[in-house]
């Protein structure tokens, strides 16, 4: 399959990339890993007149800890997240997520920025970033601005990014003592998009009560979803089996799946419930120090 014709740009700096986006407007698309965009172009679901390849902006590839945040450059590849020590040790939920995205070849190119900017509810990072209450940094002609993750996903394949903005960084608040998280994904085969996925993050105080809960859901709605009621329910309570079960039930109710080749809406809702329970249990065990 041959994509439509386009003009290829390979800017050497972020400013140059933003200037190109500003002057070319809606006719241009940013190319990161290309692992969503190129398949869409081959199917002619996307036919941009201009491609702005930002892979030359290697200073957007980093994983850093500073000022109470984990910051991840938008061009960081899934394979690098999968391999990172910091992520593996302190942000197991991100490691879980990157590890199950697509397959080794795709992970070598696919970027975390592209995964979020694509705005696809089937992608795995959005749920995890919702659970972690991440911030998205978007840089445009007037410099960077920070978008809370709750304001980022607007509709199917639609985000809060302006056409002349580039997603440059993810900012994740560093976990306090007693925090843990897990991402669970139900898939038909390795490398497939999720039938449903659940990211759970919790913080427990000294007596085991939940002081922070984050639950994000993959591929069970028009956008990635936050299970707000379940999060609220868990706050201030111990993560007993009963409370976790109730949280799972509420997350299932919060999901908005549709029936398709991956299963019926009813089945998916039941899976969200069960996987939320399992993800919360795993998050709790990790918060208590288990790896």
């Amino acid at each position, binding site marked *: 399959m041959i994509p439509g014709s386009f003009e290829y740009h390979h800017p050497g700096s972020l400013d140059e990339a933003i200037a190109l986006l500003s002057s070319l407007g809606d006719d241009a698309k940013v190319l990161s890993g290309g692992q969503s965009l190129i398949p869409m172009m*081959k199917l002619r679901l996307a036919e941009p007149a201009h491609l702005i390849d930002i892979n030359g902006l290697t200073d957007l590839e980093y994983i850093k800890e500073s000022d109470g945040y984990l910051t991840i450059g938008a061009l960081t590849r899934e394979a690098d997240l999968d391999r990172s020590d910091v992520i593996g040790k302190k942000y197991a939920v991100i490691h879980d997520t990157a590890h199950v995205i697509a397959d080794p070849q795709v992970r070598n190119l696919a970027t975390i920025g592209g995964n979020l900017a694509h705005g696809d509810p089937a992608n795995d990072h959005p749920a995890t970033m919702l659970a972690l209450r991440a911030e998205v940094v978007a840089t445009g002609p007037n410099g960077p601005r920070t978008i809370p993750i709750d304001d980022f996903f607007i509709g199917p394949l639609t985000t809060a990014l302006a056409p002349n903005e580039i997603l440059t960084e993810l900012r994740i608040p560093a976990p306090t003592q007693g925090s843990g998280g897990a991402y669970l994904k139900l898939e038909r085969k390795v490398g497939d998009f999720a039938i449903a996925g659940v990211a759970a993050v919790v913080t427990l105080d000294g007596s085991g009560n939940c002081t922070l809960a984050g639950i994000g859901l993959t591929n069970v709605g028009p956008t990635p979803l936050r299970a707000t009621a379940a999060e609220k329910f868990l706050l201030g309570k111990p993560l007993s089996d009963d409370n976790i079960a109730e949280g799972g039930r509420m997350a299932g109710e919060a999901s908005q799946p549709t029936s398709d080749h991956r299963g019926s809406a009813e089945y998916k809702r039941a899976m969200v419930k069960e996987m939320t329970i399992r993800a919360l249990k795993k998050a709790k065990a990790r918060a208590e120090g288990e790896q």
Partner: protein
Amino acid sequence: MAKQTVTLKVNGADHTAEIDQRLLLVHFIRENLALTGTHIGCDTTHCGACTVILDGKAVKSCTVFTVQADGKEILTIEGMTTNGKLHPLQEGFMEEHGLQCGFCTPGMIMSSYALLQENKNPTEEEIRWGISGNLCRCTGYMNIVKAVQYAAQKG
């Protein structure tokens, strides 16, 4: 139609060509360079038959534009043999019957090559994970795993 002159180092030799900017890497390899060992199976980024090594990393060449590889190094199945001597992976696939129709084999070998570069002594589980982006419709994977183990042992 937007054209561009690119230079890619493929299997150790520089190739310069004027190409359409929309030319996919797999088409450049197969049609411009006539290196037809790299296959096109699904053409939708699933099967891995088109896998090549781009600057040390396994990628699906049906999902990379040639212009993105300008100035970079590529290794294809044709570059695996040195002075007529088969690479241990090629030998492994032969010795362990790691192929039947052979369509997936070049991609399987390139993914396994990337795996062994990173992990000289993979477990069976790690081998299966390493080739999880490659589909084989014939073998049932058992002998592919053995072929990779053969190559790992030969070092």
